[in-house]
């Protein structure tokens, strides 16, 4: 599936190329356009076989071929193909078979060898080209990116060939662009490969100050360049600074040795024997020269020996003993030049005599000059001695005068000095006096101050003492006051205690009053009435008394809500109750109507007892109760009535309750009264 789609795409893509071919040959285009319908068309023509030219296959052709054609042609061909196609055009995805078949048909048709060769070369070339292009682009990209990313820079410079150089070059370019003034300094990069030599005299040396240039360590590139320039200007010296350093040293040595050989650079001076101490370079030159002229001279090859031998030339250069005179020097130089010329010309024989003469003359001249010099010197010495004598006398006089003046001045100065000293002493004395006075004053002041301080201190102490005394006094009085206040407090306590006592008394009185009020409310009225208010007042007065509270709590609430019956009422009611009880007095245990009726009838005929009748029957109990009631003994009456049984008891129940209530109230009141009495007794 994938392959077929690819193929179809390729066929479509190669269409323009095919069109390009179509401009030259129509059938080939038609075939390359690739459709089954066109195969028959191609078969019909088959012109491609006859054609000598190799058929261009779309697959072999490159897209970037030079043979590109105007699009109009392509459209024509396309139209042609479309005109032919529609009858049996394949469905949307062109089947792979037609392409294969076309290739099959196409493959045998052209002579395969040349086509393939050409295609191969072209492909190779293109491949190489693209490879080179790609490589260049990646290299360039790498260089560019290595300037951005440090990690990549390391990687690139380490692993990619020529990468480091390229990156370095680029950086240098940028550096130059950024700092144009340093463009000269770029040269120092180049001699990195060269071996660096350090001269033996570089750095610190025993010499205090070198007459030569202040060479040595190269502090900067520009200076180094200048040094190299000077080195280049010097003949026969190397470019490096080491040699330039080495140059002046022999120069100075030569100067010290001999003034004649001052210009050692000149080759004539090199000829002189003193130049043997010169640098080996000069020696080599000389040797070369000697070898050059040594066609006649046999001693030339032995020059490696000490350099005194080579000057043993046919004519010796002049040696003058007294060559101090400049004139003689010049003459000697001239003569030496001449000798050198003569030597160079190999005309030694001819000029040897004349030159010998000249030498002698020169020697003579030298001696004369020396004599002259000696004479002049002696004269000068005499003059000098006389002058010296004169000057000495003058000097002595001068000295004497000066000494006199000095002495005078000295005495004057001394006097002045003494005067000054005296003045200064006096002033200092004065100053000292004043100082001393001041000191004295200050001391006095200080002493006064101290005295004052002491006085103040004493005063303070006195004050303190007084204060402490006063404090003591005060504290004593205060102690007394405290005692007083405590006693007053005690008194207060006592009074409060008495107040309490009074209060308690009052309360007990109130209690008494309240109890009396309750009792009065109970007794002095004909009918029973509630005594709640009196009881509440009583309770308020004896709020914290537990006994009173308990007594009040023992009273039945209905008693003080409705009031209790008076004794007369109780007796009245007892009469009624007694008649009823008598009616039921003869009832048996399990009484019916008949027994009730009989008891009622029989009770009418029973005898009545009197007084405290002895016995346990109902009649006697009733009579006893009645007597107790008449005596006013409610308690005993209640007890008697409580001893009844059966119907009699039930009938007398209400009356008994009444009596009990009255008794309870009475008891409680008694208790409260006793409590009040007790309290009043406790207070006393």
């Amino acid at each position, binding site marked *: 599936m994938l392959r077929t789609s690819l193929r179809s795409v390729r066929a479509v893509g190669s269409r323009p190329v095919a069109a390009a071919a179509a401009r030259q040959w129509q059938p080939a285009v038609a075939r390359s356009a690739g459709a089954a319908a066109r195969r028959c068309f191609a078969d019909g023509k088959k012109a491609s076989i006859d054609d000598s030219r190799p058929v261009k296959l779309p697959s072999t052709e490159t897209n970037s071929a030079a043979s590109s054609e105007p699009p109009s042609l392509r459209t024509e061909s396309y139209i042609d193909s479309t005109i032919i196609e529609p009858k049996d055009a394949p469905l949307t995805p062109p089947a792979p078979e037609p392409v294969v078949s076309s290739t099959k048909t196409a493959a045998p048709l052209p002579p395969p060898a040349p086509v393939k060769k050409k295609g191969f070369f072209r492909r190779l070339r293109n491949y190489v080209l693209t490879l080179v292009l790609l490589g260049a682009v990646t290299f360039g990209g790498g260089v560019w990116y290595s300037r951005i990313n440090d990690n990549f820079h390391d990687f690139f410079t380490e692993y990619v060939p020529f990468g480091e150089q390229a990156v370095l070059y680029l950086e240098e370019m940028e550096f130059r662009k950024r700092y144009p003034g340093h463009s000269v300094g770029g040269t120092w990069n180049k001699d990195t490969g060269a071996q660096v030599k350090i001269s033996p005299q570089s750095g610190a040396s025993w010499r205090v100050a070198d007459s030569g240039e202040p060479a040595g360590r190269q502090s900067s590139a520009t200076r180094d360049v200048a040094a190299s320039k000077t080195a280049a200007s010097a003949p026969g010296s190397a470019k490096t600074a080491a040699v330039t350093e080495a140059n002046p040293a022999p120069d100075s040595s030569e100067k010290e040795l001999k003034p004649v050989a001052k210009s050692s650079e000149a080759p004539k001076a090199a000829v002189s024997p003193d130049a043997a101490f010169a640098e080996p370079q000069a020696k080599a030159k000389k040797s070369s020269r000697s070898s050059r002229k040594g066609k006649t001279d046999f001693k030339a090859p032995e020059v490696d020996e000490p350099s005194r031998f080579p000057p043993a030339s046919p004519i010796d250069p002049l040696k003058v003993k007294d060559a101090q005179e400049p004139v003689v020097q010049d003459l000697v130089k001239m003569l030496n030049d001449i000798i050198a010329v003569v030597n160079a010309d190999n005309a030694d024989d001819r000029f040897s005599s004349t030159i010998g003469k000249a030498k002698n003359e020169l020697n003579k001249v030298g001696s004369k000059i020396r004599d002259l010099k000696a004479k002049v010197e002696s004269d000068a010495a005499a003059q000098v001695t006389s002058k010296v004598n004169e000057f000495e006398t003058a000097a002595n006089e001068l000295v004497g005068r000066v000494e006199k003046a000095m002495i005078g001045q000295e005495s004057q100065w001394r006097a002045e000095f003494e005067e000054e000293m005296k003045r200064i002493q006096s002033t200092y004395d004065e100053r000292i006096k004043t100082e001393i006075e001041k000191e004295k004053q200050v001391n006095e002041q200080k002493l006064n101050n101290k005295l004052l301080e002491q006085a103040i201190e004493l005063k303070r102490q006195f004050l303190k003492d007084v204060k402490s005394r006063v404090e003591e006094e005060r504290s004593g009085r205060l102690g007394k006051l405290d005692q007083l206040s405590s006693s007053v407090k005690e008194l207060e306590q006592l009074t409060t205690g008495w107040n309490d006592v009074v209060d308690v008394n009052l309360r007990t009185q109130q209690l008494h009053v309240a109890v009396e009020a309750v009792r009065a409310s109970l007794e002095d009225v004909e*009918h*029973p*009435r*509630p005594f709640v208010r009196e009881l509440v007042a009583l309770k308020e007065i004896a709020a914290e008394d537990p006994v009173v509270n308990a007594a009040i709590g023992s009273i039945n609430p209905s008693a003080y*809500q*409705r*009031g209790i019956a008076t004794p007369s009422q109780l007796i009245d009611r007892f009469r*009624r*109750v007694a008649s*009823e*009880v008598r*009616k*039921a007095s003869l*009832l048996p*245990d*399990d*009484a*019916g*109507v*008949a027994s*009730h009726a009989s008891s009622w009838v029989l009770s009418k005929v029973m005898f009545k007892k009197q007084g405290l009748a002895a016995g346990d029957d109902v009649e006697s109990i009733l009579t006893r109760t009645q007597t107790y009631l008449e005596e006013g003994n409610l308690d005993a009456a209640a007890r008697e009535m409580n001893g009844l*049984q*059966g*119907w009699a*008891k*039930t*009938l*007398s*129940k*209400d*009356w008994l309750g009444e009596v009990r209530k009255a008794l309870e109230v009475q008891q409680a009141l008694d208790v409260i009264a006793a409590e009040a009495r007790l309290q009043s007794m406790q207070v006393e």
Partner: protein
Amino acid sequence: MPETSVPAPPSTVSRPVSEALLNEKWDRCLSNMLIKSSLGLGFGVVFSVLLFRRRAWPAFVGVGFGAGRAYEECNYSLKQASRDLKKKAT
């Protein structure tokens, strides 16, 4: 005093005093007997008129029945009361 006079009436109304217990029972018994005997009398009279050709004894029998019934009831109530008393005592 209004406060003293007010609470007294309800006590008498709500609960009879203990000494009036028996009297009350007797009252109930008597009224009951009267009613029952009169009822019996009435029934006896009707029976005598309708069935027994105005004979007297059916009326007496009726009264007897009524009185007997009332007596029994009264007896029962009294015994019950005495039993209740015993239970309370024990």
